[in-house]
């Protein structure tokens, strides 16, 4: 499964199973993606990929594209 597919899977688990995502989807497009859901989302992504976001990254990862890009960087840096 590609990284994007895995990420979309986590997004669906947290935000709703019927939702479709692409890189342009952002928090403001999805009704349930509020600040509370965002916390759970960050946690679930950390768990799924075994990485940790820096505190300052949390707030600016409110779009799927940004999230995917930072994930790729972190996984590359980890040699994955």
């Amino acid at each position, binding site marked *: 499964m590609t990284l994007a597919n895995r990420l*979309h899977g986590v997004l669906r688990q*947290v935000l709703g199973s019927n939702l479709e995502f692409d890189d342009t989807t952002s928090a403001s497009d999805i009704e349930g993606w509020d600040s509370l859901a*965002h*916390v*759970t989302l960050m946690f679930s992504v950390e768990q799924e990929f075994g990485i940790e976001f820096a505190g300052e990254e949390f707030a600016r990862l409110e779009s799927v594209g940004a999230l995917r890009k930072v994930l790729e960087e972190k996984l590359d840096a980890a040699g994955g």
Partner: protein
Amino acid sequence: MTDVAQPGGVPLAELLDEARRHELPPPEVAATIAEQCMRLGDHAEAFSWSVRVATLDEDYASWHRARRVIDDALDAGHEPQKRRSLRLAVLGSYTTSQLVSMVELVAWSRGIELDVYESGFNQYQQEILDPASGLYEFEPDIVLLAVEEMAAQLPHWSDSPSDAVAAETERWDSLWKAIEGRCGASVIQTNFVPPVDDAFGHIGRRMPGSRNTMLRELNRTLGEAAGDSVGIVDCERLAAIAGAAHWFDHRYWFLAKQGVSLQSLPLLSKHIVAVISGLVGLARKCLVLDLDGTLWGGVIGEDGIEGIALGHGPAGEAYLAFQDFVLALKERGVILAICSKNDHDRAMEPFEGHPDMRLKASDFAIIVANWDPKPRNIEHIAQMLDISTDSMVFVDDQPAEREAIRRALPEVDVIQLPRDPSGYVAALGAYPFFEVGALTDEDRARTDQYRSRAQAKEAELSADSIEDFLSSLSMRAEVAPVDDLHLARVSQLVGKTNQFNVTTRRHARSAIAAMAADPDHDVFYLKLTDRFTDHGLVGVCITKQDDPETIVIDTLLMSCRVISRTAEHTIFDHVVSLAHKRGCRRVVGTFIPSSRNEIARDVFARYGFSLAAGRPDGEAIWELEVADAPNPNPYIDIS
């Protein structure tokens, strides 16, 4: 229409197979099953898999998914069964939304429906002090004060620490009294977790004025002030369980004012619900324990009092530590009972004669040791003690016994012991639902009261069918003539099996080898597996063709650990097939009573043999016409 092609969409049947491979499925598998059931429109199954997640490993991401499915199922009109509905107000010094949703999930798993009111972030004091606040308008049954350590108004350093702690204790105490006075709700408070980053370091413990030392002291004085009326959730202990460094995550505090890390919320929620259950009288009352492999190592009926592991060696010490922990539970008012597959007299031997037994027979309200199915015995225990099965907790080292209880009596809580006895205390210690609202001297003497009650009462065992349980085990047997590879184990069993052994003939290894080579004899073994355990080689049978028409059973024995699994039926099936092969029309068996083989007495009669000579209560010869043999064992497949 399900969309299984969607990324992450695994077909339900595959998921159920995966779940069945475990005694308890991984939480993410159960959560996915719940989601798939919801997609398929089966709201009841979706709900039941969701609440099950809260009984599995404490994984926040899975629990969160399960919680979503619960909402969806309720929105779709599912009406779950419940034991109790409660109105819970949560007043937090931090963001409590995630905590609340986990608490609701655990509550559903205990049959409690919660109607929840949440105060605004850090509004707890105003809500309590303002008689016109939303809190009082809500009319809660229970108020939970969910506060983290920053809410404790204590400085980094105090020149008069006892005054500072007293003042802070007084502040909380007056908040509790205000709630109780204004709305009569019961109050629960989470206590404070001293932060792991302590500027005072080790010297701080020598300085009563350092903040972490004052926080510890505050936890103590709050407990004192709480007395019998206010429930305390001991987060200081929970943080130790979770690992204090993982209890709090600065990133989530700065981002979203999470006072407890998301990964610790399942643990905290479970314990909050346990304390709530205690306050409203839903505490579990009775702990039912197995004996062999649970209170001591080995099998008393086989190994004897000198052979069981208890007191010495690593395993023996582990069993002793477990007994000690059980004794402490009794002292806090948990009623103890025993449910063991054993002859009653043998089961009592360690209580009467083992020098290292920490638990005495008098510590138990009732001791049931027989060969009946355990679900039936648990119901019997409930009847004798006059308690309901939904206040019972069952502990057994055998996965199959645990599964039997889960299936027959789902309302009984079953504790999963690890294989290694050194983990038993942790497994039982992690179980939170013995929590009660208050503990009196009378509570602590409970076992004695219940023992008298049980002694005074005669009750009929209720009949219960075990066919479903046996089928559910998916048992498979391998039946084969003994070969060099298996000779050692076969002769070991012939040498030591006492209980399920119809003739107790102790043939030497060389004699067994000779019989195996003799054309008139058949020496075969049975190996048994079920979906939980590979029991290994557990049955032996030796037959001899006596005349052209007759096969005689010289030896038939089974290890205790597979008694009541119908394996004897499979052994007889094989004897019948040998008779067919040899052109015999009759099978003859002998029962020779010993001091220990009572349990094997009726084995021939149960298969359909009839008494040919002797007495049913003494030595007896049994015969079976091969043409009259019953159908092959339906519960064990032959591999």
